[in-house]
């Protein structure tokens, strides 16, 4: 799976305003609503579900990256977005570091495979330090979009 298969380009944010876990999750979910990818009526339910998932264990998987996610019946296809915080946000990550890169995923309840393959793609690309560094340095959503496209084109391992 490639980034272009699930990242809603219009919902990419290069500068999040929030400085809290809940804030950034809400901001990203709202971006997906604004991009027309999830229904506005389901925003609260989705944010709540993602926060609930975080309570079970942080998705801050280290290296300044978090992958907040949930399954939700309002989508019939995996949808996600990317956001960058220049300052970094305390996300209770596994390694204790603040999180700068966020990949938020909402997937249909009955298709765990899509979610796994998105996680696979994200984790595979994030092993590349240069990719992480360049994402963090992105000045505009278009920069992020181009980095994701470049990763899609180079990382055709699977």
């Amino acid at each position: 799976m490639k980034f272009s298969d699930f990242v809603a380009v219009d919902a990419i944010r290069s500068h999040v305003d929030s400085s809290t876990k809940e804030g950034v999750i809400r901001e990203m979910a709202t971006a997906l609503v604004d991009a027309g990818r999830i229904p506005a009526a389901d925003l609260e339910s989705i944010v709540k579900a993602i926060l609930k998932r975080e309570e079970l264990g942080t998705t801050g998987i280290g290296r300044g990256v978090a992958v907040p996610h949930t399954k939700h019946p309002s989508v019939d296809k995996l949808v996600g977005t990317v956001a960058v915080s220049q300052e970094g946000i305390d996300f209770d990550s596994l390694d204790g570091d603040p999180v700068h890169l966020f990949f938020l995923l909402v997937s249909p309840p009955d298709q765990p495979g899509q979610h796994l393959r998105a996680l696979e793609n994200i984790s595979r690309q994030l092993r590349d330090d240069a990719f992480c560094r360049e994402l963090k340095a992105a000045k505009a959503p278009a920069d992020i979009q181009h980095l994701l496209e470049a990763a899609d084109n180079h990382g055709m391992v699977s």
Partner: protein
Amino acid sequence: MQDTVSREVVVGLKQGLHARPADQLAREARKWQSRVELVSKSQRVDGKSILEVLTLAAEEGTRLVVETTGADAREALAAIVRLFEGNFHENDDAAVDASGRATTP
């Protein structure tokens, strides 16, 4: 002594080896001195790294070989295999099926 031992496991998790079990696995693996590796049909990854484990994208039913090498290889292998056999304390999907509505007590 650098023993290498291995055992095949099958992913029994309905949701596959996703972020939370991958975290559990990496945490358990890091408790041991031994190198812990997971081998799938196409790759071999470091079991102590959640990022590496996630690149397996192992769905339910996937067969993996757990391989441990080092002084405490046997104990490490047993601990990791136990996680798989216990389905990482999951498959209680009510708690995970996160529409946020159904699970409210």
